[in-house]
C-alpha cells in the first residue's frame, strides 16, 4: 500500500471595491489536505479542511478503496524540489492602505469612470509528497487587481474591465499604468477602418481565444474521436508560426511546476503544437493509458478528489516580433472585453465584443463601437495568424498579444 499527501494552502486578503471606494476587507487562510492511498489496483482519497489527524485521514482513505476507483499506475517518485518564487508585493497590513491609494488616484485621474470589483493579495502553497520519495512544493505571493468600470453617463452594468492578474513584482506606478492604460482612450470614440477583415489583437491570457483548442487538445477528446483534431497527429494543421505549449513555468505566472499526480516535465513544458504541426495532446495517467498516448502531466485535483485530466496552462509561443511589427503599419482591433462568444463543434467562431480599442502596436488610439467578430479555429491559428508578440503592454505581467485577421463588423 502506498500513501501520498496533497496539500493546498491559500491565504488571501481581498479588498472589495464599489463606486471606486473600499466597501469591505476580507481575510481568509484555509488549508486543505488530501491523503491518497494506493493498493496497486485502486485509489482511496480522504480530505480535510483545516486541522486533522494523520491517522484518521489515512484510515478514511483506506476505507475509500472499497469504492473501486481504479488506479493501477505507478505514482511519481524520487524527486525533491521546493520552489518559492521570490515576490516583491505588499504584506497583509500594507495591502489595504495600498488599495486606498490606488483608488484615490483613480478617483482623481478619472472621475468620469466608476470602478468596482476587487484587489487581492494571495499567498499560495501547494505540496505533494509520498512513500516513493516524491517531495515537491511550490509557493508564491502575488497581487491581482481586477476592476470593472463604467462611465458615469452610461446606463449599462459595466462598460469594460481593466487590471492585471498574478503580479509577482508589484509597484504602484506599474499598477496604475496598467489600470490607466485604456481609460484615456475610453473617452475617445473612433470608427473601424474601412475594410471588413481587420487584424484582431487578443491577450494570450484571454480564455475565449484558446477555448476550442483547450477542449479539443484534451487527450480524452482526441483519443475518443470527438475532437476536431482526432486522427490528425503529426499533421500540419496551423500556421508555421503557431506553436502551443503545455507549460508549468512558475516563473512566468503563478502555478505549481508539477501537476496533481506529481509529474514534472523537462523545462516544465510539453509542446503540443510545434510550428503548426500537431505533436501531442494533454493527458493524465488514466487518459494516457486508456488511449495509448504519451503522458504530458496534465492532471488536476481538488484536495479530496481523485486526480483527473485537467487543461493545464497553455502558452502560445512568441513569433519573434513586437506587436507593432506584427501589425505592419495597420491599426488593429484590440479586444478587451468579449463576453458570450463561442466556437461551434465544427470550429466556427463568433463573438460580440463589448469593448475594444483601435491600437497601433504601441498605444490605444480610441474606443471602437460594439463589434461582432467571426472566424474559424483553423483560420485564427492558420492562414490568418499574423503571430504572437514578444512584448507586453502590461508593466506587471507577462501577458503577450496574438494577432489574427478576422471578419469584423459593427454590432446593431
Amino acid at each position, binding site marked *: 500500500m502506498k500513501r501520498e499527501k496533497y496539500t493546498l494552502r491559500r491565504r488571501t486578503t481581498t479588498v*472589495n471595491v*464599489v*463606486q471606486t471606494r473600499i*466597501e*469591505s*476587507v*476580507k*481575510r*481568509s487562510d*484555509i488549508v486543505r489536505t488530501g491523503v491518497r492511498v494506493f493498493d496497486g489496483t485502486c485509489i482511496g*482519497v480522504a*480530505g480535510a*479542511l*483545516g*486541522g486533522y489527524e494523520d491517522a484518521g485521514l489515512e484510515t478514511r482513505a483506506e476505507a*475509500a478503496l472499497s*469504492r*473501486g*476507483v*481504479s488506479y493501477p499506475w505507478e505514482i511519481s517518485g524520487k524527486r525533491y524540489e521546493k520552489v518559492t518564487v521570490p515576490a516583491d508585493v505588499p504584506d497583509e497590513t500594507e495591502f489595504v492602505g495600498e488599495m486606498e491609494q490606488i483608488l484615490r488616484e483613480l478617483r482623481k485621474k478619472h472621475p468620469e469612470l*466608476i470602478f468596482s*470589483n*476587487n484587489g487581492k493579495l494571495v499567498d499560495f502553497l501547494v505540496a505533494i509528497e509520498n512513500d516513493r520519495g516524491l517531495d515537491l512544493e511550490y509557493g508564491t505571493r502575488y497581487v491581482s487587481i481586477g476592476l470593472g468600470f463604467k462611465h*458615469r453617463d*452610461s*446606463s*449599462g*452594468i*459595466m462598460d469594460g474591465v481593466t487590471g492585471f492578474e498574478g503580479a509577482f513584482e508589484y509597484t504602484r506606478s506599474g499598477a496604475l499604468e496598467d489600470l490607466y492604460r485604456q481609460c484615456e482612450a475610453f473617452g475617445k470614440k473612433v470608427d473601424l477602418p474601412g475594410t471588413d477583415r481587420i487584424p484582431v489583437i487578443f491577450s494570450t491570457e484571454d480564455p475565449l481565444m484558446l477555448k476550442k483548442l483547450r477542449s479539443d487538445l484534451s487527450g*480524452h*477528446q482526441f483519443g*475518443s*474521436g*470527438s475532437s*476536431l483534431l482526432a486522427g490528425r497527429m503529426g499533421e500540419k494543421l496551423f500556421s508555421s508560426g503557431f506553436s502551443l505549449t503545455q507549460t508549468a513555468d512558475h516563473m512566468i505566472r503563478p502555478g505549481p511546476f508539477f501537476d496533481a499526480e506529481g509529474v514534472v516535465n523537462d523545462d516544465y513544458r510539453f509542446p503540443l503544437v510545434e510550428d503548426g504541426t500537431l505533436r501531442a495532446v494533454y493527458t493524465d495517467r*488514466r487518459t494516457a493509458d*486508456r488511449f495509448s498516448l504519451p503522458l504530458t502531466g496534465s492532471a488536476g485535483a481538488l484536495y*479530496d*478528489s*481523485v486526480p*483527473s485530466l485537467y487543461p493545464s496552462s497553455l502558452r502560445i509561443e512568441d513569433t519573434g516580433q513586437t506587436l507593432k511589427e506584427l501589425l505592419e503599419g495597420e491599426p488593429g482591433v484590440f479586444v478587451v472585453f468579449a*463576453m*458570450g*462568444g*463561442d*466556437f*461551434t*463543434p*465544427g470550429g*466556427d*467562431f*463568433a*463573438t*460580440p465584443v*463589448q469593448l475594444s480599442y483601435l491600437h497601433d502596436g504601441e498605444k490605444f488610439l480610441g474606443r471602437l463601437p*460594439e463589434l*461582432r467578430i*467571426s472566424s474559424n479555429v483553423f483560420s485564427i491559428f492558420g492562414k490568418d495568424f499574423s503571430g504572437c508578440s514578444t512584448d507586453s503592454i502590461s508593466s506587471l505581467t507577462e501577458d503577450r498579444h496574438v494577432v489574427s485577421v478576422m471578419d469584423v463588423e459593427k*454590432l*446593431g
Partner: protein
Amino acid sequence: MIRFPDGLYSDVRLEESYSTLVRFALGDLEEQRVRDYRAAFIRVFDGRRWYFAATSDSDSVQKELDSLAALASPDRRIRTHPVVEKLQCNTGKHLRYDDNPVSGIDEKSKVDLLGSYFPLLSGRDRVKTWTALYRDRLQVKRFLSSNGADVTFDTQTAGFAFGFGLARGEKRLTESFHRGGTGIDGLDGHHEAFREKLETSEDFLESSMPVKPGTHTVILSPFAAGIFAHESFGHKSEADFMVGDETMLREWAMGSRVGSDILSIVDDGNVPGTGYVPFDDEGTRATKTWLVREGILSGRLHSASTAADLDEKVTGNARSVNFEYEPIPRMTTTWIEPGSKTKKDLFSEVANGIFIDTIRHGSGLSTFTIAPSMSWMIRDGRLAEPVSVSVISGNVMQTLRDIDGLSDTLELFDVPSGGCGKMDQAPLPVGFGGPFVRVARMNVQ
C-alpha cells in the same frame, strides 16, 4: 455562545455541508467522494466598512470575530444605521429535509441510479465519448447576529447529468441530458426521455447545416428562455450594480417600460429546487419578487446594503457561493411567466423562423448572447431542417420589447452541475425556466 462586540453590527454564518459526487467516463468509475465539513463566515460592520473572515475551524469563530472587531471603529449608534435596520431578526429552526436527507442514502444506491442509464449509450457508434455525473448536497446553515437573529434552515439538491460528444466525419456535436430536484426519488424513470435525446442528437448531427446568418423570428424553448431571462435581465436586477449610480437609476427607474406588455419575470427563493433559498445568507426570508410585470420594471434583488442604499425592501437575495465568500445580491429561481397561447399556436404563426431548443451557454450585459446547441428552422409554422448556429445576440432592451408570444405552460429546471457566475463567486446553484418564448427579431450567426 457567541459574544458579539459592542458598538458594531456582526453576524456569523455557520455551515454544515454534506455532498456526494460520482463520476463515470466511458463506463469507468473515475471519482466517488463524499465531502462533509463544518465552516463559518463572519462579518463585522462599523457603519463605514464591512470586515469579513472565513474559517474552516468552527472553534475559532469567536477569535475571528474578535480579530475583525479590532479592525473596525465602534459606533454606539450602529443599531440605527440604515443597513442594520434593514437586516431581519428571524429565529427558529426551519428544516425541510431532516426526514429525508441525501446523507442518509447509501452510496451504492446513487451509483446504481446512474448506472441504470448506461445501457442506453451502448451500440451508438456516433457517440464517441460520454461522462455521467451524480451530485447531491445537503446544507444546514445557522445564522446568528448581534441584532438577535438565530435562524437555522436547510437546502438540499440531487441530480445527474450526462454529457456526450458525437462525431461523424468532420461533424461534431456536444450535448447533455440532466435531471435534478430536491431528493433522489425523482431521478429514476427518465430512461425514455434520455433515449429520445440521444436519438434527436444523432439525427441532428447527421442532418444539420450551418444557418444562414441574419435577422430571424426566434422561438426559445423553456430551457433557452430561462437562460435568456437569467442572463439578459436577471443580472441587471441585482441591485449592487445600481448602487450610487445615478444614470442607471434614472434609466432603470421603477415603473419604466422595459419589455412588451405580455412579459413578466419573477424571482422567488421559495421554489424547491436548485434555487431554493428559504433564508438568504443575511438571514432574510425569501420573497417572490416581480422584476418585470406586464413589461413594467417592478422590482430588484437586494441585500441589506443595497436595499438601504436604494431605500427599498430586502428581498432575501443576499447569497454566497460557499463559506469563503460574503453574500452579494444573486438570483434564486428566476423565470418568465407563461402567457396565453398554446405551443401549437405559437409555432403555427411563424412563416419563417428558428427554434432554439438546447444551448451551450448564455451571457448578457447591454448586449446578450446565447450559444445554441440544437436548433431547427421553422417554415410555415412547422419545424423543418436542423441548423447549426454559432451565437444569437441582441440588445437586451430591444429584445425584451420584441417578445410577441408566450406559450401557456411554465417549465422550471434544476441543473445539478454548474451554476451561475458573478465576479469570483461561481458556480452558485440557481433555478430558471419559462414557457416557449417567441421573439420577433434576433440576430443569428
